């Protein structure tokens, strides 16, 4: 599976409610971040969590977020960033002006 995003791309984390095992923390859902790095391709843990045959591999990215975008009234520096490892199926392309 070819990776859909490259470092520097802006991405929007899907805000969908997904039942079951989810590896994307709630506080980044619906937020815009930036791809920092492709970390590799790994068996999808959200399927692996239910046993059965080994699932296909999916690209995993390191995505950065501005802390000020994540937390209302964030009191730290505006340059502070938070990095989260996110699988590709949780990401959609985001436009520059979304940021």
């Amino acid at each position, binding site marked *: 599976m070819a990776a859909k995003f490259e470092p520097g791309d802006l991405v929007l984390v899907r805000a969908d*409610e997904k039942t*079951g*095992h989810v590896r994307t*923390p*709630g506080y980044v859902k619906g937020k815009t971040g930036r791809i920092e790095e492709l970390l590799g391709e790994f068996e999808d843990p959200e399927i*692996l*969590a239910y*046993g059965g045959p080994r699932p296909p591999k999916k690209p995993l990215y390191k995505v950065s977020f501005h802390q000020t975008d*994540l937390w209302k009234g964030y009191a730290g520096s505006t340059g502070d960033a938070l990095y989260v490892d996110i699988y590709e199926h949780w990401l959609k392309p985001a436009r520059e002006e979304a940021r």
Partner: protein
Amino acid sequence: MTDIHDLGGSPGAGPIDRSQHDVEDWERLADAVTVVLDKKGVKTTDEHRRAIESLAPELYKKLGYYERWIAATELLLVEKGLLTREEIDERATELEESWS
């Protein structure tokens, strides 16, 4: 709405309890049993996480870290048909009685 384990940023969650305690023998054993079952290919870390997350919210909050591990391992062993709930309860009762 996120599940019980997805606490980051929840209002009123309060600060993280960073206090430490010495590791107890039963905790080492809980860790060892879980890791061996992973290494033997009986279950995966992802199944273990899913099992922990499936605990009833009230139980999840009440249990400590390794108590959740034990609950998850038990749940997965029963789910996979390797042990029955009755066998586990029976053995637990035997052990309890041998110590009382």
